[in-house]
């Protein structure tokens, strides 16, 4: 059997995106879930499944208790940080397709700016006593101790191997911020940047500058997943999960897969891409909108290559001109991405995918039918193809 078309995203919900929410992460999660259920025309009592990230601080049962969800027949968590985003929908879709649950809520909520900031050094991550802590022993003490630094190592090699420049990284940031500028929900609404702004921004971890790095955000996002059949009876156009997949590469580490033959590559995203095209029966040329995970700009270029939009090292040429703009060949992150809208660990990108298929996005790509959404890069990851197939 295939997962294609079995499930649909029937509701999306979000809090505001801020730098200081002023309330608990559990409260944010509950607001997002409640919003998504309202959007789907469902009640908390309709929910029987919940999925989130292992990194999320809000237990499924806590959210269920607060909202009066009652009994749950399915609950699951996905590991590897932002790599979990699309996989929460995959988990939900599999639960729905197999009858493990009828209505599953996927959520992610945190005070990632006012609380624990991912951009800072996490001694807890460095010193966890498990196999990941042992993995981390080979880079934290050496000084590779932030997400930006982990990406910078691969980005430096990418520049060297393929003759790209940091301006090519900057072009991704400029497009994201251009789209955010016209998205009222985006943190950087009304604040576009130029390539000069990018080049003038301070170094974080060379070759990454400040404007190559996503924001830190307080907020919550939730998605309601149910069967494609049931979704037809709900208020919104059902946004079908045409494909959902996870991927981990050979010799995989979390953000530091430095020991594989190719450093300037994301083979785990290739694992995801191959499954997405096979499940959906589509190919990269069918994609109308690409919501690509953009915590750091270099990995957007590498994703374009791994997903087949262009060859290895050719992303700098592929994105030249207006390719990634709303009217371009491959509109990228119309919501502004995580650099422009908010950093919700990839979940806001899925919500944008839903809006694009519904035709209700702030920066709507006309006639968007097939939307590709990817999750965290540099980690074991996941991806989705969403669409309206009647």
């Amino acid at each position: 059997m295939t997962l294609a078309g079995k499930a649909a995203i029937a509701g999306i919900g979000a809090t505001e995106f801020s730098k200081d929410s002023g309330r608990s992460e559990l409260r944010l999660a509950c607001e997002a879930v409640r919003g998504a259920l309202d959007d789907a025309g469902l009640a908390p009592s309709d929910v029987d499944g919940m999925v989130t990230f292992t990194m999320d601080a809000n237990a499924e049962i806590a959210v269920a208790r607060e909202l009066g969800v009652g009994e749950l027949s399915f609950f699951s968590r996905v590991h590897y940080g932002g790599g979990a985003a699309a996989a929460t929908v995959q988990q939900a879709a599999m639960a729905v397709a197999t009858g493990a649950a009828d209505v599953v809520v996927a959520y992610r909520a945190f005070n990632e700016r006012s609380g624990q900031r991912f951009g800072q050094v996490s001694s807890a991550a460095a010193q966890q006593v498990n196999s990941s802590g042992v993995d981390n022993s080979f880079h934290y003490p050496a000084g590779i101790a932030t997400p930006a630094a982990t990406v910078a190592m691969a980005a430096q090699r990418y520049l060297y191997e393929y003759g790209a420049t940091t301006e090519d990284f900057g072009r991704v940031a400029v497009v994201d911020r251009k789209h955010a500028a016209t998205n009222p929900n985006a943190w950087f609404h009304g604040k576009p940047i130029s390539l000069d702004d990018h080049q003038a921004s301070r170094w974080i971890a060379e070759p990454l500058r400040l404007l190559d790095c996503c924001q830190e955000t307080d907020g919550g996002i939730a998605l309601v997943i149910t069967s494609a059949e049931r979704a037809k009876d709900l208020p919104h156009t059902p946004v079908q999960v045409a494909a959902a997949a996870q991927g981990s590469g050979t010799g995989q580490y979390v953000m530091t897969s430095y020991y594989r033959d190719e450093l300037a590559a994301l083979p785990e995203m290739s694992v995801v891409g191959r499954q997405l095209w096979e499940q959906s029966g589509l190919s990269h040329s069918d994609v109308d909108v690409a919501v690509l995970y953009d915590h750091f700009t270099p990995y957007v270029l590498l994703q374009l290559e791994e997903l087949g939009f262009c060859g290895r090292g050719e992303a700098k040429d592929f994105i030249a001109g207006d390719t990634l703009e709303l009217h371009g060949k491959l509109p990228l992150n119309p919501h502004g991405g995580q650099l422009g809208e908010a950093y919700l660990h990839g979940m806001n990108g899925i919500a944008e995918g839903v809006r694009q298929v519904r035709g209700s996005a702030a920066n709507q790509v006309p006639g968007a039918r097939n939307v590709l959404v990817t999750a965290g890069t540099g980690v074991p990851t996941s991806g989705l193809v969403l669409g309206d197939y009647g």
Partner: protein
Amino acid sequence: MTGTMDSDIAATVHEKAERIAAGGGSKPRPARDPVNTAMINNWVEAMGDDNPVYTDPEFAASSVHGGLVAPPAMAQVWTMNGLHGQRAEDDPLGAMMAALDEAGFTSVVATNSEQTYHRYLSPGEHVSASTELDGVVGPKRTALGEGFFVTTRTSWLVGDEVVAEMTFKVLKFRPAGSDDGTAGDAGAAPWQGPSGRVVDASERAAGVLRPVISADTEFFWAGTRVGELRIQRWGDTLRHPPGPVDPGGSMEATPDYVVAAGHGTVYSYVVHHNPPVPGKQLPFVVALVELDEGVRVLGELIDADPGEVSIGMPVRAVFLRVDEELTLPAWEVAR
């Protein structure tokens, strides 16, 4: 060292040493074979000594010796125990090693050997050897760990005549960081380790995030403490970072390690500017280095001008000694 060795242990070691020394020399143990030309021929070939006085009977007959003689440096060869040989029961070195094993000083390294030759030996002569314990000094803190220097004196005899003598010294030690709760002290840095310089980083790296160490990676961190960049080896395959299973798939295989020479080139690097990282001074360079041995190892590239760093640049290993327990592998530009 974070503390001094239990004085009882040291006292016990010295007490046993005195008893063993008081026993005098071991009963002279005869060589397996008399001095013979076959062994001489093999030995001089292996050593690259082409003096014909050892191998050419005619030449030797015309020499001051009047016939073939054995190289004096072969003295010890004649009384080697052989591949499956056992030490004599009254051998004082064996007894002292056992006493130190018992006290927890389980590792050994030979430190020096001085031989004195009183005369040449000729084929057909049968030598025997007797060893006595000359002294035990310690405890001493060394780069390898805390231990005792054990000196023995061996005499080679033909009949009652002493033909050669040797003073032999070994360090019998407890490896740094062995699980007795103590860590060896690498000694006052800087000093040269097998893979690179060990430098004092107690100030520059104060507060650095410490590695989580497992049974699979313990050897690596024990290595950095003694200036060794240890790379795990499974058969012929090197792997880094290390792990518990043979990359070849065998569940029966066990790993050992090679000590890297410490030379490599920058495969990629990062110049870290922000945010601050514990134990590092901003900005700093971290390099992913491809070792000459073929694996990549990550470390801070110290004392480098970020502007001069490039991919392909040669670097060499250096070790940042943070404290008794932690020494970090790092790199410096090979100039």
